[in-house]
């Protein structure tokens, strides 16, 4: 039996910055609030890893930064200018109502964080304040505790509960004991972050599996623009000990080091015009452009033997190393000091583009509500704000959306009847969640996960094409058919990793399906979505958001929300269009 626990007004799932800020918003509005967290309440998710604890950024318009006394270098900047930039950077797929919320409330979110004890470490860019990810978590967690928010750590969310078309709570597993729990709630806010672990190569922590997106989809919410995934271009692949570490990316953004193919040659010029190459090496556009160049070099067969390309950091002249240590003091301690020993020994790191940030996700309205009454979503698991490419800060996204979602969820819960748990549905769910315990001779869950990684690795990374995407759909269908056959070697429910991987796969497979399906439907190259068989950006025919809804098995191409600005009509080659967009952005920056 799934035990039904005490009811809450609002249950938040996930305790990254989005989840913590949503909980604060709900508690401030008087809701009795619980946060269900997969890991440790204040040390999990991408928020912890933001900026690799060297320098994460929170973004805000320059005028507000000046008002807050943080920086006066950009004080003629306004939310309106920032709005235009975010929409251009997103190649006009952004939901402009969400962008409005983003630029209009970022300052409030930053200001309150400062009041709650966040330390500012300097400036990273004109609009970017430099902070530590762990500091953001500490400030938010402290505030949430003060407001009486409760936490349930080491607990894996698997499903949403609903009755009569309205969300009534969540189902989760206490990982240590293996107990299944149903927690009734007046409203639920999903803040489960990205789906990094769909990919073998990713920059996230192991708790990011797209479970919120999939559970929301299964329950009847919509997913938007799932094909849009930012890859961090230079994530460590080899040696294995540092796999997933983004230090080489921090080096590149600071200006140090170079990328070499197996012949020891630089190669980005092969794929990018001089102007665009400059952007790739020297600007915030580097994620998208370098990923494209590196993946192209790997596909051409000139990559390193371990699959990526080499990131080299010359150790002489010694003065350069001294400059480097001056610029990045954290290199002298901890894991970074260990990595620096590799360079000191004259070796390089093998790096490659890795899944890093998910622009797409659960489709939300500007109050963060979804198509399913009582369900709200915020942060990286929600989609739409950044359209086809994120350049501005995702940390600001999680704060802005988290605050709005918490407030809306509390208001919804106040008006809702006491949540009722549908016991028949619960029994049925229990059967599905525990099924492998009663089976023998089926595939092991980690074997299915390995096959999933093969599929995502060959079809869903930086450069895609129809033939591969169709193969991926077939492969995923096969895995879906295998999932109910899974069986375990390990029969005990206490901290059973095989069981956990089965539960993850239940959500990872639909998430991978949604990404593949959307990537097939978008027959153009735009922003972070590049199709070698459709190399043009097509503003005449493709200015739509791809919306998937599970309930009706419906796929809709919904015209993008262009409430404030519109792009030029026309069709361009992918990199040509990027040049054009960047020129427009630069043009705006020339002020008297």
């Amino acid at each position: 039996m799934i035990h039904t626990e005490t009811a809450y007004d609002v249950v938040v799932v996930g305790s990254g910055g989005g989840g913590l800020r949503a909980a604060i918003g709900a508690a401030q509005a008087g809701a009795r609030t619980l946060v269900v967290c997969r890991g440790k309440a204040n040390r999990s998710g991408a928020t912890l890893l933001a900026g690799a604890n060297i320098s994460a950024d929170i973004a805000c318009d320059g005028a507000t930064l000046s008002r807050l006394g943080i920086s006066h270098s950009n004080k003629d900047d306004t939310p309106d200018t920032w709005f235009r930039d975010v929409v251009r950077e997103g190649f006009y797929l952004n939901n402009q109502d969400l962008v409005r919320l983003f630029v209009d409330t970022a300052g409030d979110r930053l200001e309150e964080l400062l009041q709650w004890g966040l330390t500012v470490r300097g400036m990273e860019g004109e609009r970017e304040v430099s902070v530590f990810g762990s500091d953001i978590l500490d400030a938010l967690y402290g505030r949430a505790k003060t407001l009486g928010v409760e936490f349930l750590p080491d607990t894996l969310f698997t499903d949403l509960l609903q009755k009569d078309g309205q969300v009534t709570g969540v189902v989760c597993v206490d990982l240590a004991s293996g107990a299944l729990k149903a927690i009734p709630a007046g409203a639920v806010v999903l803040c489960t972050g990205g789906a990094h672990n769909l990919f073998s190569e990713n920059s996230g922590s192991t708790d990011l599996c797209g479970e919120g997106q999939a559970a929301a989809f299964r329950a009847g919410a919509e997913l938007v623009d799932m094909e849009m995934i930012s890859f961090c271009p230079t994530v460590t692949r080899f040696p294995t000990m540092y796999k997933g570490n983004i230090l080489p990316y921090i080096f590149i953004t600071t200006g140090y080091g170079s990328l070499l193919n197996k012949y020891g040659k630089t190669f980005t010029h092969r794929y990018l015009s001089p102007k665009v190459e400059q952007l790739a090496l020297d600007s915030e556009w580097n994620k998208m452009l370098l990923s494209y160049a590196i993946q192209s070099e790997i596909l051409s067969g000139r990559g390193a033997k371990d699959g990526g390309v080499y990131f080299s950091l010359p150790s002489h002249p010694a003065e350069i190393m001294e400059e480097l240590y001056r610029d990045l003091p954290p290199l002298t301690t901890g894991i970074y000091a260990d990595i620096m020993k590799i360079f000191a020994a004259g070796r390089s790191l093998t790096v490659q583009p890795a899944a890093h940030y998910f622009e797409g996700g659960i489709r939300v309205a500007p109050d963060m509500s979804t198509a399913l009454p009582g369900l709200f979503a915020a942060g990286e698991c929600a989609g739409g704000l950044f359209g086809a490419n994120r350049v501005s800060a995702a940390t600001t996204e999680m704060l802005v959306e988290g605050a709005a979602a918490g407030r809306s969820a509390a208001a919804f819960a106040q008006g809702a009847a006491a949540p009722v748990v549908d016991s028949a549905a619960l029994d049925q769910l229990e059967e599905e969640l525990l099924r492998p315990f009663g089976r023998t001779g089926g595939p092991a869950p980690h074997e299915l996960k390995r096959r999933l990684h093969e599929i995502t690795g060959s079809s869903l990374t930086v450069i895609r094409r129809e033939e591969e995407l169709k193969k991926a759909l077939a492969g995923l269908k096969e895995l879906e058919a295998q999932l109910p056959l899974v069986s375990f070697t390990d029969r005990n429910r206490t901290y059973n990793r095989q069981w956990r991987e089965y539960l993850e796969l239940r959500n990872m497979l639909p998430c991978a399906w949604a990404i593949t399906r959307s990537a097939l439907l978008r027959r153009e190259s735009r922003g972070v979505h590049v199709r070698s068989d459709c190399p043009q950006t097509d503003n005449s025919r493709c200015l739509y958001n791809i919306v998937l809804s599970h309930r009706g098995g419906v796929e809709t191409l919904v015209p993008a929300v262009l409430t404030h600005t519109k792009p030029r009509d026309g069709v361009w080659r992918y990199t040509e269009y990027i040049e054009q967009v960047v020129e427009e952005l630069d043009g705006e920056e020339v002020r008297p």
Partner: protein
Amino acid sequence: MKDYHVTVRRSGPDGGESYLQEYTVSFPEEEIVSVLNVLETIYREQDPTLAFFDHAACRQAACGKCMVKVDGAVKLACKEPAHETMLLEPYSSRVVRDLLCQS
């Protein structure tokens, strides 16, 4: 290839006496692997019942949750290079299962 000989102090999920179990895993000579990489490999290739912290692991020495005793000293499994021969034990007495302890 290089072999790593690992002895793990295990405790069943139902309590009872702990016991030692030995595993050997190999990696290419030029690899650098962590204790966590070794545990992952054992789970995937040899023993899917082995329990260690991995459900919300940063893998980058940031969350502080992967603690384990390596040859008697408490280390972060993701930050500690694997020793060629090593004894892995739970870092505290509040064992949930194998190397996983209650925090």
